[in-house]
């Protein structure tokens, strides 16, 4: 398709739109370019050539758009490190040929579609399985669905190691890729074992695409054969009943079966009631035996330490005194002692 529009000029990228400084830079750049054009092999020339302008971090498109000024900067270091580091820019940017003084922009078509077509050309298998997904269906319907670059990014695509992904990668995928659009489902999954374990570096646990498939993005449903298959990758003994395990329950299980909510309510209440009663009882006990709590509140820590020392000295020395016979100020051992003396 690149060829189709190649005759058309760069519509908006006239050097006139750039600031004076930029213009100077561009002119210098073009001069450099001319030299490069003669000396460098094609692919390298393409990359280096495009980066003369696009390698500048401050290079922005000032055309008013919805999202404000758009950065046209391409970080050459990350690009070279990416799997496509050896490719020419124009391998993907098909409409862009390094012509002088300005290159071509394909305005006929949405660049997203161009991107899919570019990816398709070199990755037909991936494209085919993507094509079966509801993501593709949704994209073709109204463009909100993800395309290759929504998940993979564009200039920093990393090598994929199927089955050997690190936990960081899986977590990043869940949080920043799938989770970016499926925030609700990520939020519901993050309190579940698999994602929690991933977060702590357990690479064997499942991330979104382990269960849903990374291009097919199956809509899983409990009890169905695809779901059983999905679980069987890691849980060989899985059967249909097993898949009724709910991966995406809301915090506090608001969307769960009533049984789950009942259990949650019961045990949370039990937890709170037992601990509150236990701690209250203990606190009163502590106060009775040591007078510490009110002591500290009233008399400061000095009394506490003095009291502990006194306690050590007194330990196991049976005294005939009771609380009342002591000087009122002196902390007492009370309780056990009273009885001892009795």
């Amino acid at each position: 398709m690149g060829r189709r529009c190649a005759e058309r000029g760069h519509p908006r990228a006239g050097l006139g739109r750039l600031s004076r400084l930029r213009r100077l830079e561009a002119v210098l750049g073009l001069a450099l370019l001319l030299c490069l054009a003669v000396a460098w092999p094609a692919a390298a020339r393409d990359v280096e050539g495009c980066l003369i302008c696009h390698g500048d971090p401050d290079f922005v498109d000032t055309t008013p758009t919805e999202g404000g000024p758009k950065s046209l900067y391409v970080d050459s270091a990350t690009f070279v490190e990416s799997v496509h580091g050896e490719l020419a820019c124009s391998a993907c940017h098909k409409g862009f040929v390094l012509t002088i003084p300005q290159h071509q922009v394909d305005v006929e078509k949405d660049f997203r579609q161009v991107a899919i077509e570019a990816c398709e050309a070199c990755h037909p298998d991936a494209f085919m399985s993507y094509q079966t997904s509801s993501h593709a269906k949704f994209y073709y319907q109204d463009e909100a669905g993800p395309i290759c670059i929504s998940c993979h990014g564009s200039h920093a695509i990393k090598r994929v190691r199927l089955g050997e992904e690190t936990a960081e990668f899986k977590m990043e995928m869940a949080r920043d890729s799938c989770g970016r659009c499926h925030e609700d489902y990520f939020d519901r999954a993050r309190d579940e074992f698999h994602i929690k374990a991933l977060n702590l570096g357990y690479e064997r646990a499942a991330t979104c695409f382990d269960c849903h498939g990374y291009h097919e993005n199956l809509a899983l449903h409990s009890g169905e054969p695809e779901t059983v298959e999905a679980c069987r990758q890691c849980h060989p003994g899985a059967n249909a009943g097993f898949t009724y395990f709910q991966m995406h329950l809301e915090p506090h299980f608001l969307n769960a079966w009533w049984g789950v909510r009942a259990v949650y309510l019961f045990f949370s209440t039990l937890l709170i009631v037992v601990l509150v009663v236990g701690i209250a009882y203990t606190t009163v006990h502590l106060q009775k035996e040591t007078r510490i709590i009110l002591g500290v509140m009233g008399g400061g820590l000095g009394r506490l330490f003095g009291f502990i020392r006194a306690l050590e000295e007194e330990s196991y020395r049976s005294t005939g005194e009771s609380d009342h016979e002591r000087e009122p100020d002196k902390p007492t051992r009370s309780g056990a002692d009273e009885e001892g003396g009795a």
Partner: protein
Amino acid sequence: MEEGKDYYVRFNWYHRLSHFVMMTTFIGCTLTGPPLKYSYDFWAQAMMNFWGGVHNAGLIHRVMAGFMVGVFVVHAIYLMYWVVIRKADVFGPDSIFFRKKDLYDLIGMIKWFFDRGERPRFERFTFWEKFDWFAVFWGIAMIGTSGFALWFPTVTGQFVSGIFLNVARIIHGDEAILAIGWILFVHLYNSHLRMNVFPLDPVIFTGRMPVEHLKHDKRAWYDRLVQEGKIKPQ
């Protein structure tokens, strides 16, 4: 402890060993489990790294849990032995089972707290000791069962719907927090921070309790032991 004191052997080697194993395995599970539950908290990653990752922590957790359940099973057998073969008096003063006196003791304790009466005269086991003992039964039944269900999730799936795995996780987590909270705030206080034993009561490790202390703490038992001639009156 001072020399020349009289001691009474309150816990025999079996009691001490059980408690020791229970304590170590409990600490082991406490240090390996919560980092997963609170995965997103700042300390979780550090703790997991300490164990060498989730996999190792999981392994330790399981070994610990195995021993803990082992203690539980042996204890069940031990109880059966006393009840069935030795025909021990289940609700007698030497028993750790709850009985009516415990309720009176509880009321007596509360009265004592507010200076409305004497400290109750406890028998061999105070009601809070009994409660701690009983809580282990409840805890192991709950945490242990749910833990095994999660350990072998597909086996669980063979018998019940997978939704019970969600249920199991709720129970496992909540009960664990309850147990940890109880041990930290109630059990540790009751057994080590009380006045007559502060700062640490070694009786559960040494088994030997100074008669002096016994007299203060468990007067009814003391009286009974003196009567039976098992200890010299102080």
